[in-house]
């Protein structure tokens, strides 16, 4: 257990990027659902950060509480296994107009 954890942290890398919300209606139920579902495909910890608030990107309820609107800037941060791939998949979705 201890050993596994060590190996994990060695391979762990934090990826972070700032994005502008592209959905016309902001992170509403439907765009948020699409993004949350995508986030769930990755094993790493993924957070969205807006102003001082950090939420779990795999939680619809938490993502909705960000109240992120079209044109708002948020930071996406992925930490752990496949963090780079998570970022590569989520950034375009956040920037796209999903409705």
């Amino acid at each position, binding site marked *: 257990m201890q050993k596994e954890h060590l190996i994990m942290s060695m391979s762990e890398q934090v990826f972070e990027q700032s994005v502008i919300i592209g959905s016309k209606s902001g992170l509403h*139920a439907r765009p948020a*659902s699409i993004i949350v579902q995508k986030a769930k495909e990755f094993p790493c910890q993924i957070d969205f950060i807006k102003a001082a608030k950090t939420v779990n990107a795999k*939680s*619809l309820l*938490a993502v*909705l509480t960000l*109240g992120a609107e079209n044109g708002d800037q948020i930071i996406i941060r992925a930490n752990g296994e496949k963090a780079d791939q998570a970022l590569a998949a989520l950034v375009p979705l956040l920037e796209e107009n999903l409705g």
Partner: protein
Amino acid sequence: MKTLQGIPAVTGIALGVAHVIKPLAPITAATQRTCEEEIARLTAALNSGKAQLATLQATMTGETAEIIATQHEILDDPELYEQSLALIQTGISAEAAVTQVIDQFAQQLASLPDPYLAARADDARAAGRRIIAELQGITQSLQFQEDVILIAQDLSPAEVAERDLSHVQAIVTEEGAATGHLAIVAQGWGIPTIVGMAGIMASIENGQTLVVDGEYGTVTIDPDEATRTVTHTRLAHLQQQQKEALQYRDRPGMTADRVPVAVLANIGSLADARKAVEMGAEGVGLFRTEFLAANGIPSEDAQVAYYTEIAKVMPLPITIRTFDIGGDKPVPGLNIPPEGNPFLGWRGIRLGLDRPEEILLPQLRAILRAATVGNFQIMLPMVVAPQEATQTRALLDQALSQLEREGKPARRVLLGIMVETPAAALTLDHFRGLIDFASIGTNDLVQYTFAVDRTNPRVQARAQPLGLATLRLLAQISNSGIPISICGQLAADPQAIPLLVGLGIRKLSVAPASIPKVKQLLASQTLEEMQAKIWQALRA
């Protein structure tokens, strides 16, 4: 065969099969089970709920499908699960844990400025109820393959919204008042509804055949052959009538001799606004804003956004009634003390003027801002004296100068009052110069005139909506020199319409589903015939 009596809320008849929505048991935090057992219960409830929703989602389209998809996503939410687990580990029940977590999220969502996101608080609460129902072994049906008559303890607007109403023939609830939220929503959709039917939950089981008579407020359980035959005949007759009325939908309202009488809609939500447009409304005569405040007074920005959305759907004039909130409809965060007699209590404009910074001023500012996009006018509820209009005018001026200083675009709008107290009815001429229009709320006016609590079925028959007392008040109101419209239930009553038009009233505001019928009735008589009716009634 057995017949039960309730309070008629939406007229119409249905013959069909009962679907009983079992109420949730009260939630207690204390539990006899171990943490592990509670966690296992929660996991099982979430899985079962998700499985049901997935099946349902596959068969649905449009808005309902989206509501269901959101519900599914919430049941699958890792934060909801993790936070509930942490709470269960403090020794409380799964039900209490889920309720706490959902409440926290719902409160955060409700406080967001964006009205769509704020409305997701209802989605969160609906998901919470679903999980609790699963934990208690109750299955909630949201969609029906065949026609059903819904029987419930009570239904909140959210519980109605998440259901597919296309197969709902009628709604009967044990609790509720004729003027409650459910009644108003069902009226907009034209679904026969009876509320306040004591004993219905204990008397009916799933699958029993019922006749629901929304006109008289009766439910007949296991009707005999004769009753069924009569009901079939009445149904066929009603359907024929509806078909005929629909031909009047897109014409402007007018009497047989072509005197224009505008037929407007009473709405409470965006869905109602769409229905109003679909049914041929010539504007909105009453936009009840209380629904917006179901989870607390929304922020000014949230109100601006919501009013703007309504205006986009309905380009014609919209009369917004300021929050008619009181002790009978508790609003979270307002701390209105419970009252022995909330209908005579601290409500409507009284509450708004006494607590302007929290309630009235943000709403006035929001309406003035939204008026740059929509054709809005403001109407005040529960007015008894001219100084209430004067005070509101001062607040309006204050709001306008504030907005100008802040550089926020706004537009001055017309101001009117509801005439729903005998005091306002008898002294309306003293409001001249202070208000631009008045609208008669007949439900409350009748209740206050006859001293009959409209939520109490025992005394209901003593109120006479078309009694001489009401007619004399209506005559007095129509002589005030102020433009008058009507937005109570009388405006859709075939007996009342000729009397109202005969008195000179040229605007009737009714539930969206009633609009074609009202236009049809108007077109059946000349103004002269209507005037003769009211003079005869007043001489009586």
